[in-house]
């Protein structure tokens, strides 16, 4: 009986003590600790944009520098889900890039295409806001008109 009785009061004491401890911590946060929320997107602070929030290596939308692209199609092959479509056509002597489309609605931002690019033509931008009304807008056509491919020869000699 005494054991039971002792446990009865011990339970009450434990309950009060642990509850008080927990409430002390929440009180500390209530009174003292400041909020860490970032008020995205409209109150980021002066002159800050959404793209400043992310780090240097952030993997956002893909970006193409057509002047560097040598049309080697490695990124297209590396892509696990085939969201890049490149067409290279020969017009006369020159090779032209006629299409460079990236389907950002399918892209899973794995970075394999950026990794294999020998010239650094395809890179990640910091843009991450992809909300739009029509999913077709996410299929980004990087080239408006055919662009002649960069010559890889200079690079090859360096190597």
């Amino acid at each position, binding site marked *: 009986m005494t054991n039971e009785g002792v446990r009865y009061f011990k339970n009450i004491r*434990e309950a009060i003590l642990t509850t008080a*401890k*927990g409430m002390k*911590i929440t009180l500390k946060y209530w009174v003292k600790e400041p909020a*860490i929320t970032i008020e995205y997107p409209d109150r980021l602070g002066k002159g800050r944009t959404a793209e400043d929030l992310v780090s*240097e*290596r952030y993997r956002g939308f893909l970006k193409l520098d057509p002047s560097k692209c040598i049309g080697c199609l490695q990124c297209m092959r*590396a892509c*696990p889900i085939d969201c890049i479509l490149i067409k290279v056509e020969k017009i006369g002597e020159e090779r032209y890039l006629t299409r460079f489309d990236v389907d950002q609605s399918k892209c899973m931002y794995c970075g394999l295409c950026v990794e294999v690019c020998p010239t650094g033509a395809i890179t990640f931008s910091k843009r991450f806001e992809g909300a739009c009304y029509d999913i077709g807008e996410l299929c980004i056509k990087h080239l408006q008109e055919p662009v002649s491919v960069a010559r890889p020869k200079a690079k090859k000699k360096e190597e």
Partner: protein
Amino acid sequence: MAHFLTEEMILNMGPHHPSTHGVLRFILQTDGEMMRRAVPDIGFLHRGIEKIAELVPYQSFMPFTDRIDYLASACCNLGYAVTVERLAGIEIPEKADYLRIIAAELTRIGSHLIGLGALLLDLGAVTPFVHALRERETFNDLMEALCGARLTHNYVRIGGVSHDEPPSFREKTRKFIDHIENEFIDEFNELASFNTIFINRMVNVGVISPEQAIEHCLVGPNLRGSGVKYDVRKNDPYSIYDRLDFDVPVGHGKFGTLGDCYDRYWVRVEEVRESCRIIRQALDQMPESGAIRTKLTRAFKPPKGEIYVRTECPRGEMGFYLISDGGASPYRLKIRTGSFTSMAIISEVSQGVMVADLVAIIGSFDIVAPEVDR
């Protein structure tokens, strides 16, 4: 005595229930609040990752391993990379090894933070969950600086890692693990783990004896919660875990019976501390500079063969059984995940508990639905 006619109730819990992490479904057979049986119904997140593996090249499969268990993507990456490397006999640079371990253990911390927090959220305590997420935010920032993604890291590559450490990564990581180890866990314990209400909810609920746990192929923290001292990182070390000194926390019936929900919870809390220790050692030992990646041939093809490699993910052993026919993509890749077997044991553990206990049991197993379904 009058005989009351009672009727059993069939309750459908999920797939859109607040406490079925992800998209799980249980068919509950209850007698009022008391539960007779809970039959799990899985497959809502089945994406056929094993089939995808047979279609894409070895390197290109890496992003898909992120999606096996999205809360611990670096650990899954590591497991797959180790499997392929062991089969193909690829040596990887020392620094890459350390970076991998740091990423994997940071992920383990991040994953456990969510696991612990979500369990508390299921039991009605919202504040500890938000506090855990606050800490996870730091982890997300660290990983973002390291590899550029916050959730699906895709950091590890076959033959190394994708990026070298960014500037001031070591200091930031040290600060983070110091904060977790010295301040956050203690506060979290005081706020939640040692609360009488929480203890009463968790002890003597969902008890799994060591024999039962082995019989049902439980792995990871759920097995260790039952008192079986088994950790792949210790028993079958991969990467550089054999160079690092850490303990394997096991459940010992801290407040109640051995193998109850509280033990599984407590093992996770302790594992966060151990991960902090591992990261600290890895940061100390990591070379200042060096190669981070072994170049593979463009069309990488491992030799013909079969291999089964086990790695330790936050939810337990993640095994990759890889069959290669010498082609560019795996012939067959079986991914054995921890949540799969934990999910299978639920119908046995949940006999005769209350509906509220089922929520605690699911939470204590730390089940992530995509890992069950793959």
